[in-house]
């Protein structure tokens, strides 16, 4: 069974603070994605990656950076968190079929 693990699962941050959301996959998939989902809405793509060392901007990249240091790990970085970034974040790996992590709930006060 493909496995995608996100951490932390819950995070409370202060405005202006730095937040790093981590994602680890054991599927050996090249493609990985970060989405955010706001209440009552679908998933919006923030950043994605085609493999180690690669990061690409998705539909809503502003305010976010991404890092793919290895095949297994893909991080989403908020250098200066803002309340508008309060959301649930999902990571996924993909090789034709998407496999999602369980989500990370971020609250920025």
């Amino acid at each position, binding site marked *: 069974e493909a496995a995608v693990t996100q951490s932390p699962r819950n995070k409370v941050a202060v405005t202006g603070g730095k937040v790093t959301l981590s994602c680890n996959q054991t599927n050996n998939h090249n493609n990985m*994605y970060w989405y955010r989902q706001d209440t009552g*809405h*679908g*998933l919006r*793509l923030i950043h*994605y990656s*085609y493999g180690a060392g690669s990061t690409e901007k*998705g539909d809503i990249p502003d305010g976010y950076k991404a890092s793919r240091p290895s095949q297994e790990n893909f991080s989403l970085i908020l250098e200066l968190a803002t309340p508008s970034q309060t959301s*649930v974040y*999902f990571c*996924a790996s*993909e090789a*034709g*079929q*998407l*496999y*999602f992590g*369980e*989500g990370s709930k971020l609250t920025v006060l």
Partner: protein
Amino acid sequence: GMPVEQNPPALSLYEGADSGLRCNFSTTMKSVQWFQQNHRGRLITLFYLAQGTKENGRLKSTFNSKERYSTLHIKDAQLEDSGTYFCAAPNNNRIFFGDGTQLVVKP
């Protein structure tokens, strides 16, 4: 237009009823995936199709790449089927999601 249009946006069914959801694509997609997001927020894969039809219990999904649509049919709806259903399809090295269908199954 949007690469993926999903409808209906919301659906209410009584237990035991049958119904269907649909995603229309603006262009030819190679595959489609259907997810259920449950009350805990977890995204559960229901189907992945590159063509044709798949069934799993009370659920059946069809993907017609040429006609640019996919359907998800729910038979004999149960309370635990409540949740939000999404379709997703790849195009130009990106994955595009529908906006979801919020399904409520009532006793």
